[in-house]
């Protein structure tokens, strides 16, 4: 597999949200606005990138039976570091994402990439994979957030362009499922066309 395709496969071919349908909890929970989706995506990308690198570096020394606990410790450490840094330098974003930041630890995308890719591939490839999957996740969350924000509060990236309220249901939980469902249809239609 070429280096470029490792990087780009996460964005389209193996997009974690639209194709693999992984990490649904933060996907549905945080995408009430485009900014929130983007922030959550970037936070996950940060963790994914670093945890992939470290896990692929230590995978050779870790006995198979304690593989998962070791990986979880690595991932959890990076999430906690991220939490401290966000609290210190972006308190506003930290407050909106709040609960979902610690939940990155149990995001199946992160552990999934550690198991399926990082533990079997070189450090550099794992880094690219982490960035690629992370960007795919970020793109998906931003698009979903943007759609929900457009329909739900008639604004885009926090900028209001129509006075008044949008269709409230899109801000609430059911709207997340509805919007995600239609986006899935669109994305897969687009994907088969490209093929």
């Amino acid at each position: 597999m070429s280096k470029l395709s490792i990087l780009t496969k996460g964005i389209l071919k193996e997009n974690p949200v639209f194709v693999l349908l992984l990490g649904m909890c933060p996907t549905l929970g945080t995408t009430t606005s485009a900014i929130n989706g983007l922030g959550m995506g970037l936070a996950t990308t940060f963790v994914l990138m670093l945890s992939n690198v470290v896990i692929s570096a230590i995978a050779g020394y870790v006995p198979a039976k304690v593989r998962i606990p070791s990986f979880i410790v690595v991932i959890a450490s990076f999430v906690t570091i991220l939490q401290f840094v966000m609290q210190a330098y972006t308190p506003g974003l930290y407050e909106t994402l709040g609960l979902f930041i610690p939940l990155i630890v149990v995001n199946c995308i992160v552990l999934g990439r550690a198991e399926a890719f990082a533990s079997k591939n070189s450090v550099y490839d794992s880094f690219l994979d982490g960035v690629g999957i992370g960007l795919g996740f970020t793109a998906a969350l931003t698009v979903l957030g943007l759609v929900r924000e457009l329909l739900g509060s008639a604004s885009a990236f926090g900028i209001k362009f129509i006075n008044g309220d949008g269709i409230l249901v899109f801000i609430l939980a059911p709207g997340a499922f509805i919007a995600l469902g239609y986006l899935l249809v669109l994305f897969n239609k687009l994907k088969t066309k490209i093929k």
Partner: protein
Amino acid sequence: MARESTLKNMVLTLASITLLASTLLGGVYVLTKSPIDAAKVAKINSAISKVVPEFDNDPSSDKFIKELNGKKYTVYPAKRMDDIVGYAVESFTTGGFGGRIVLMVGFNADGTINNTSVLSHTETPGLGDKMVEGKSDFSVQFQGKSPENYKLLVKKDGGDVDAITASTITSRAFCDAVTAAWEVYKLCVDQNIKKEGQDE
């Protein structure tokens, strides 16, 4: 590829990984502690300056704790030339739709509400979060009102407050927190009158 899963190997690996991780976390904690504290203080300070009249002291260093019905509230007095021009009361309620709501409620010296500011909440975006200043006119209606003759209840409950459409629970909780702040404010004023009496 991986080492053999003997007990010794497993214990050693896990021990060293957790040791490294905790060292790293400790380091980051120490590094970010002061910026985190600074960010918290900055947030409180900006909320205070939003809700009380102009002041020239440092309310966060003059703060004191008041107890009301077994709950503790932090009060930040705002002074100009050593005269109290208002109080900012950090009030909270657990009755919100999403749980806890923390408010900063500012009172003028004459007992009217100057302004309110939401410190933290978990209300529904697009519905309950309209109580946050600037997102709708809900919080504006409290400005300049004295709870003495302004009933801090939503109209549905026989009060004077216009509730946020489709967010009566949030509106009730908001009123609840403002009422608590008002009670705390009265305690502060009573105490001041007593103190002045003793001085004379």
